[in-house]
């Protein structure tokens, strides 16, 4: 598997919306073509990805503001919990609700969010030097 590459010209790190796009793309995986209800799941996944790109911008901005005030290395549990709740709120009443409620999926979401928040904090720590 390859790395993706994110670049931003000029100071200040990446804008929060760019981090949000990366995070949303990692959190929403398109269904396999042979799964039951493929069309409905595919449509729900596309809508969820769009919604998460918007919703996660606020969470990444919170992480950025926190990082600018502190030298914290590890993401705050509060930021992770709030982002997970936000993600689950967008799946409520959709065909994806049960999937995103599964404990193992919640664990993967937490790992993805932690990786992205940790990266953002690292970037802003470097920017402060």
């Amino acid at each position, binding site marked *: 598997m390859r790395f993706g590459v994110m670049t931003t010209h000029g100071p200040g790190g*990446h804008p929060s919306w760019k981090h949000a796009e990366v995070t949303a793309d990692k959190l929403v*995986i398109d269904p396999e073509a042979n799964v039951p209800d493929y069309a409905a799941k595919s449509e729900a996944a596309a809508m969820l990805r769009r919604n998460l790109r918007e919703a996660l911008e606020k969470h990444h901005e919170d992480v950025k503001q926190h990082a600018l005030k502190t030298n914290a290395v590890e993401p705050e549990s509060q930021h992770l919990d709030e982002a997970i709740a936000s993600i689950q709120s967008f799946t409520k009443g959709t065909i994806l609700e049960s999937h995103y409620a599964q404990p193992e999926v919640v664990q993967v979401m937490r790992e993805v969010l932690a*990786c992205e928040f940790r990266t953002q904090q690292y970037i802003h720590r470097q920017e402060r030097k």
Partner: protein
Amino acid sequence: MSGFSTAMPTSYKAELAQALHNHTITTGHDFRCALGVASPAGTFDATTTNYSSLGSDELAATGGYATGGFDFTAANNITPIGSAGTAYWQWGINPSWTSATFSTSGCLIYNATSGNRAVYVGSFGGTQTVSAGTLTLVMPTNGATTSLLRIQ
């Protein structure tokens, strides 16, 4: 043909069975990610065995890049796990460079604790350029079909 081709070095696969790499979180080895120049003279692929192979094809230590590259630290190792016949692992942070001005076309991840042995060669699919800004290599989702490092 010179350049970077995404691959898990063959030497790394053999070294895993010799216990020369430890990816355990916190207590494992220290891995680093070095960036290559936009147009390398050498060829970097599954035959690459060591960071020393990169030589003058590593970015120069200017423009926000320090020789040796990004230090993941053992704290950001993700301990390997297995699922449905596949073992997989990677790191819990995306390598990033700030105040960066350079062009790069690939990377080499290596084990700084264990003789700088090569772990992963990555192509960026073309030249990536950043100007007085930030460049981040985005890890895929850690999973049996998506992780950076997988053995089936």
